[in-house]
């Protein structure tokens, strides 16, 4: 199976505003389920989406392309699923004061679990980016979901704990991991 998913949203905002939300560092990205993006955006560098307190890492990948304000490509693996990394491509285009965001998620090779899980997530995430950029917050349903996730965080798989992620243990030995 080689599934490929494309999700699109049109946002009433300049491309720079949308790009800033998607590539925001150090602060939580509400549309990405309140995670914090950590990376230096250099092709070949590691990128992670982690919990605000830094204890858990949910998504780990490698930057492939970074071309502000139109394109961000990175590999993608859920830390709790032992699958090979998939590929995420963010593409932004602006016309008539609207910014179109296209997320293409591909390279699912026999990865039904990741494919099923991200399909609903991208739908929510893109709707949320629109909502945050246009109104300043995510919709109520998502806020409730965030509350639930915070509450049940202690039950999240232990594989998401930073100290249990092999790639990050190696990186830490190098010494220069950026702390927000």
């Amino acid at each position, binding site marked *: 199976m080689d*599934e*490929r*998913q*494309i*999700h*699109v*949203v*049109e946002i*009433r905002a300049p491309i720079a505003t949308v790009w800033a939300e998607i590539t925001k560092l150090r602060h939580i990205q509400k549309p990405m389920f309140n995670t914090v993006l950590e990376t230096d955006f250099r092709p070949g560098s590691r990128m992670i989406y982690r919990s605000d307190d830094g204890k858990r890492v949910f998504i780990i990948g490698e930057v492939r392309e970074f071309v502000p304000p139109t394109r961000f490509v990175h590999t993608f693996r859920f830390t709790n699923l032992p699958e090979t990394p998939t590929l995420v491509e963010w593409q932004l285009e602006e016309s008539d004061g609207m910014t179109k965001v*296209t997320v*293409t998620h591909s390279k699912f090779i026999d990865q039904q679990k990741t494919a099923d899980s991200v399909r609903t997530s991208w*739908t*929510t995430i*893109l*709707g949320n980016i*629109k*909502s945050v950029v*246009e*109104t300043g917050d995510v*919709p*109520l*349903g*998502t806020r*409730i*979901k965030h*509350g*639930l996730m915070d*509450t*049940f965080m202690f039950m999240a798989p232990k594989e998401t704990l930073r100290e249990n992620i092999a790639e990050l243990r190696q990186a830490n030995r190098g010494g220069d991991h950026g702390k927000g």
Partner: protein
Amino acid sequence: MISSHDDLDPVWRALANPLRRQILDLLREHPRTTGEIADALGDSRFVVMQHLASLREAALVTVEVDGRRRINYLNPVPIQRIYERWVGKYQGDWASALVGLKRSVEFNTASHHDRRRKPKNG
């Protein structure tokens, strides 16, 4: 508050037609070329192309060109926005109650532990 009501107009128009909803059902299974959709529906390619145009305008379908083939993908984001707008707020009751319950259980457990760890006078 910036209203985005008008954004959903094309979505409602697109969803108002049964054949277009059938196309969305087909694409929910997996992405398909225009020809494959026409075959599955037993309809003419021309008719299907017209309906796809309306679905694209509503951003319910997005197209990727692969050589000479045009592959149509379902984009459920606009439907999610309809859901958030009319249904999202009703999720509140049970979900927030659950969170509240969980928090109060945790709070009680935590304060119980605290009491055991460092007993206070009185």
